[in-house]
């Protein structure tokens, strides 16, 4: 269940997961979420999302949060606990990319500078929207628009690249002189690891957008950051994922601390199970990603992002099973 129906715990599924089930399953009670879940189900979810996050260098929040809400965990606890899961997956990813010298730390820190400001503005807008009372719809619509657009663009770009390749035309290598308007901006900086020489302004701007979108939509923003770095800054595919993970690690670790300090909604037990699955999955994902061609990887990620976007659109358009939903005040 997505944010559009955050209040509605999916009853049938919740019963499936909270009741003693047919196959051998170990129930564990989550102290903050306040309900028992099947430990292997959560572990498997962590593994699957971790694999995807390691492969594409994304946090996977846009997949994990809806999954947790789907098994009956309240949206607020889900969002808060997912942050620490993403931190763990991306930490494991950062280390393995670091060893392969595929992390541009300077670029990551510059992005972070813009990201912090973006997060602050995003949190402010979040509060305003919540006051207006249509936060759920806003989030649902922005998921649809953002995910469908980004997914569609990535698919069309990567399909064209793959077709070009199959027609035997050499893939145009990145030429040093191929400048766009982005390269005409002042405050130029050289990022050695990525072999790029760009203005700091678009770097800050991208960081700002990611921080802003992340705070408003409750996602890490990795799936946005990776294509932005590739298309606007021409960061080579080799370093883009590792660098994006550095940003995700720092933002999500601080998000965990902030969520815990302000809302007291981080479920450490849930987070630990997700983390263990997540880091193992991320290791295999990172390996699978390294062995894959860049444009194939982008096509797959584009398909995944588009699919999630369409899923949200479907949810908004199709009549829900239950028109009514309950939410305890104060728990949100």
């Amino acid at each position, binding site marked *: 269940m997505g944010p*559009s*129906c955050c*209040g509605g*715990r999916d*009853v049938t599924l*919740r*019963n499936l997961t*909270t009741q*003693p089930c047919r196959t051998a399953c170990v*129930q*564990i*009670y989550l*102290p*903050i979420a*306040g*309900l*028992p879940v099947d430990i292997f189900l959560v572990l498997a979810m962590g593994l699957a999302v971790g694999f995807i996050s390691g492969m594409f260098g994304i946090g996977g929040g846009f997949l994990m949060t809806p999954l947790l809400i789907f098994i009956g965990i309240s949206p607020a606890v889900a969002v808060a606990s997912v942050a*620490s899961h993403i*931190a*763990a997956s*991306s*930490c*494991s*990813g950062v*280390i*393995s990319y670091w*060893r392969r010298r595929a992390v541009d730390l300077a670029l990551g820190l510059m992005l972070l500078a813009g990201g912090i400001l973006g997060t602050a503005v995003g949190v402010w807008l979040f509060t305003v929207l919540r006051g207006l009372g*249509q936060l759920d*719809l806003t989030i649902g*619509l922005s998921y649809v628009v953002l995910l469908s657009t980004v997914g569609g663009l990535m698919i069309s770009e990567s399909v064209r690249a793959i077709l070009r390749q199959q027609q035997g035309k050499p893939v145009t290598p990145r030429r040093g002189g191929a400048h766009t308007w982005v390269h005409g901006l002042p405050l130029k900086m050289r990022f050695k690891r990525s072999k790029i020489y760009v203005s700091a302004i678009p770097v800050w701007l991208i960081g700002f957008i990611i921080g802003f979108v992340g705070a408003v939509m409750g996602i890490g923003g990795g799936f946005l950051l990776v294509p932005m770095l590739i298309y606007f800054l021409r960061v080579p595919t080799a370093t883009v994922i590792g660098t994006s993970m550095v940003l995700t690690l720092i933002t*999500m*670790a*601080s998000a*965990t601390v902030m*969520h*815990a*300090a*302000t809302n*007291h909604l*981080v479920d*450490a*037990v849930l*987070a*630990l199970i997700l*983390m263990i699955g997540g*880091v*193992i999955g*991320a*290791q295999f994902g990172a390996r699978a990603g390294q062995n894959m061609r860049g444009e194939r990887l982008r096509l797959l990620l584009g398909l995944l992002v588009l699919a999630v976007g369409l899923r949200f659109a479907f949810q908004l*358009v199709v*009549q*829900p099973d239950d*028109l*009514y*939903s*309950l*939410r*305890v*005040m*104060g728990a949100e």
Partner: protein
Amino acid sequence: MTIRLAIATVALLAVLIMGATPAVAERLVTSLSRHQVLVTSNFAGTSIVLFGTIEPDSPNARRRASAYDVVVTVTGPKQNIVERRKERVLGIWTNMGSRTFLNAPSYLAVLSNQPFDQIANPETVRQQQLGIADKLMPQLLGNDVGDVGRDDAFRANFIRLKTQHQLYLQRTNGVTLLTPTVFRAELPLPAGAPIGNYDVDVKVFAHGALLTRANSAFEVVKVGFEQFVANAAQDYGLLYGLTTAMMAIMTGWFASVVFRRD
């Protein structure tokens, strides 16, 4: 003189009897199998057993001893709950209407030995709020607080959703009369039962009238590790957050060490 004394004695006795035995001529004694439900890491719901005896104290009461009916009501901690309804606007389903239920029981179980219409007349059933549908449910209506009719869609769907979550239940065969004066009821608590105090209210009816009632309570508490985590999250938020973030980083680091190939 003796006659006067006799009259006075009779009058005094009559007063004493009238005063000492108001309508109640039954003594109700109840006992719960436990007063504390501990929520541990493998908590997956449980049930509490309620035993009770009805002791008729007067000859009058003894005559109706074969006609006792018992209604047990368990009320969980109170919560303010918002109910939302989705409507289609410009082709998109979105939350449009909402209703706030004030101090609604998070958990509500009504158990009886037979259907309410056989226990008392509809008027009494409504007055005593026996069934879940009869319970007074204060709602925020504009600036007012009140309860709408039981046919109201928001109210009916509120009860339906709560029942689906296994937090509201009504069983008209939930109380077993082992003998005409001894009864037993099993109070089921689902895994998602909220933490807090639960009130158990037992009402005894005979021939359609309420005779007596008794109250007791139990609590659902987190213990051990669960309580430690919950307390830490609440009382030491920042430290808890830092610990969780460190745990995330350590887990990530540990995995990369374990899976290191080169």
